[in-house]
């Protein structure tokens, strides 16, 4: 008989070790699946986890992609994790991401074709404000009228998507684009382009912002009163009130910060890797970041690693489709397994496994 026995305190060792165990378990289970699909499991797993980083031909192309894909995920997930820790559920990062992109791009395009060095900083600011303002809508409605921030923020994603469609065919449409929907391309507008800081690495300004956000969140949560209040509110709301936490201010801070970071992610994406505002510019980063936040256990360093891992499975997955002809569904299944094992292995940090010969003593 196998028994699960609750630990008095969650094990630190297992909390750190379970992600590694989960990746190994995913490789085994995924390998079996690829084998059943008639592919060489070892080659498939090497293609997903190894080739994007170290393959002679693909490596140089896909290595920078890793940072490009991971940065928005990390940036958004860091913001979300603050709210999630306090029990404030912003599900609408996708909408805030879109609004950050629209506002930031709008400011940049308004000054076309100026070459002032102030343009890009102004866009960054506008992007953050756009995301912040969009997140303030559920925030203010919650503190004034007690509405549910989950529903409001989610609904506002669809509003933002419609706004995106509207501006890319109207307000921000490229006047020289021969009627095609979409804005001017920022690649042709150097003062507003989110360029690579170090060429060929994928390290654009958004990546730098993501790393800064990780450090900022880490310091906030471990060394600052505000971070303590965030954690306290999530773990024991009554104790937080007793400790003098102002719930209204905390709700607005958490939603505002996550909105601003999502807005920044949108701005860096639209002015760099995406290059222009288009109808379908958003690609679900705002939703995927929710998974990244939880995979990283709502911990800044965990989110950094989870964001990189998530980006790796995306890039590796695309590579596997291309190289081995694996169906896209199999890749999604493989990513799903990774989530599944990560969450399932969690049991090890909360419980101890006992093997007992006679269960009914």
């Amino acid at each position, binding site marked *: 008989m196998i028994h699960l*026995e609750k630990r*008095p*305190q969650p094990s630190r060792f297992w909390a750190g070790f379970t992600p590694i165990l989960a990746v190994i378990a995913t490789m085994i289970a995924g390998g079996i699946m690829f084998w059943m699909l008639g592919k060489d499991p070892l080659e498939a797993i090497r293609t997903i986890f190894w080739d994007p980083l170290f393959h002679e031909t693909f490596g140089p192309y896909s290595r920078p992609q890793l940072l490009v894909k991971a940065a928005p995920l990390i940036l958004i997930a860091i913001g979300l994790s603050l709210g999630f820790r306090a029990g404030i559920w912003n599900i609408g990062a996708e909408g805030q991401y879109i609004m950050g992109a629209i506002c930031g791009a709008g400011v940049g395009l308004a000054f076309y074709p100026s070459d002032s060095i102030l343009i890009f900083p102004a866009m960054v600011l506008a992007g953050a404000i756009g995301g912040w303002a969009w997140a303030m809508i559920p925030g203010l409605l919650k503190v004034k009228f007690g509405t549910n921030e989950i529903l409001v923020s989610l609904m506002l994603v669809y509003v933002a998507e419609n706004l995106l469609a509207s501006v890319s065919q109207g307000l921000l449409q490229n006047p020289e684009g021969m009627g095609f929907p979409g804005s001017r391309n920022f690649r042709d507008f150097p003062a507003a382009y989110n360029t690579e800081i170090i060429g060929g690495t994928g390290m654009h300004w958004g990546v730098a912002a993501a790393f800064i956000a990780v450090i900022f969140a880490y310091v906030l949560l471990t*060394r*600052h*009163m*505000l971070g*303590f209040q965030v*954690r*306290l509110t999530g*773990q*024991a709301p*009554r*104790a937080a*009130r*007793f*400790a*003098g936490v*102002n719930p209204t201010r905390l709700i607005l801070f958490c939603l505002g910060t996550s909105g601003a970071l999502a807005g920044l992610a949108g701005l860096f994406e639209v002015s760099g890797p995406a290059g222009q505002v288009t109808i379908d510019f958003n690609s679900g980063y705002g939703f995927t970041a929710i998974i990244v936040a939880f995979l990283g256990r709502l911990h800044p360093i965990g989110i950094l690693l989870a964001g990189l891992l998530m980006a790796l499975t995306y890039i590796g997955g695309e590579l596997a489709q291309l190289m081995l002809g694996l169906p896209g569904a199999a890749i999604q299944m493989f990513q799903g397994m990774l989530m599944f094992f990560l969450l399932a292995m969690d049991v090890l940090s909360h419980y*101890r496994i006992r093997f007992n010969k006679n269960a*009914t*003593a």
Partner: protein
Amino acid sequence: MTGDSRQADALLTLEGMTKAYPGVVANDQVSFSILPGEVHALLGENGAGKSTLVKMIYGLVKPDAGQMTLRGESFTPVNPAAARGSGVTMVFQHFSLFDALSVAENISLGMDNPPDRRALSTRIRDVSQAYGLPLDPDRIVGELSAGESQRVEIIRCLLQDPKLLIMDEPTSVLTPQEVDILFETLRKLTAEGTAILYISHKLEEIRSLCEHATVLRLGKVVDTCDPREKSARELAEMMVGDTLHVPFREAATPGPVALSMSGVSMKSPNEFGTNLRNVTLEVRKGEILGVGGVAGNGQDELLAVLSGESRAQSGTIALAGEDIGSLHPNARRARGLLTAPEERLGHSAAPEMSLTENALLTGAVRENLVERGFLRWRRTERFARKVIEEFDVRTPGPDNTAGSLSGGNLQKFVIGREVLQRPEVLVVNQPTWGVDASAAADIRQSLLDLAHHGAAVVVISQDLDELMEIADRFTALNEGRLAEPVPTQGLDVETIGLMMGGVEKETAA
């Protein structure tokens, strides 16, 4: 009566009951017998293993070893339903009732084979009259007093025709009058041959009610006795295992008014809470004011309006003459008004956080633990260590979570955290609730010392013995109103009962 003859006539016999949890043996070879028609007390400090033992009898916990015999047959309940089927029922310390449903609906939900609603209502009326427990089956539970809610639980048990009734701390929520009614009922039950296993911290009660007592310490049976032949002090010493430290009290001359409330009315933030009505009080430096009253009469609300979790109208609460009615909790702490709410887990402490973090929870302002928004962890940890050492909190260290401490130890930590911040005024709610005798004595002594050094102390408690022991003046909350405070000396139980307002309620029900 010798052990053998007890066993021969026994209703229930326990032999070698053992249950171990990781790191602790909750019950170690516990053996005793309960006779039919006897009130059998189970005595012991917190953590002595009383709860685990009754949970094994009630089928909630499976023993590691040992056997039970009920009326001559082997008794191994796999779950509470099986235990009830064999005639063993239990009234818990915390009620498991739905506030929004009626008495009859609640009772029918807890029964294994409920009869139809009308037959049930009739039976509830019959049983409640037969045992002197007035209760209207159609009333909504949310409107009942704590004493009446307990009757619902008891009647639910009685309807199943029990042979053994287990009661865990049944009087902790009752007025003296309600306690009398309960004891009357229990005596009727035992006269009919029902045995009662009675768990309580209140030794006077056990002396007046129980015929036999089994004393547990650290999971083992250390003694048995007839509590009617022992003094409360002797019983307490059996539980603790050494001489009991009785709080020492020096007469103090009260100083100037430290805290005053004038006509504070406040709507409870909680739907089933009690609104405060026109509460007026004055506490002087160096005195302890005891606030009695049955649970749910505005205790939580009174503490919240003083801690600053609820705001009062400005001008109604004054600390040393300064208006603080509209100040936030931390602004009040800065001025010297500290509080400790009743609920330890989740209110006065965050269970999943370490003791260091919990020290920060209220100590940030007065202990200077924050500098320009940044936390001074080393200083905070030193403060947590000081609380642990000076209040004898049993824990491996300040890195352990609050939730890993036993109730009594956490309570010592919570009270110590406030006392060591040198408050001008300290308000505590149920400071020794669920705390063992020696820890409770330590806590009371620290409150007395605090008052002796010139602080004003308000103790809200449902334990009247405690209030009589430490308070200089006594008042009581009844439906959100505060009675006129009277000196504790020379106060009799009758007057206290009237102040608590239990009497009108009994006749009305």
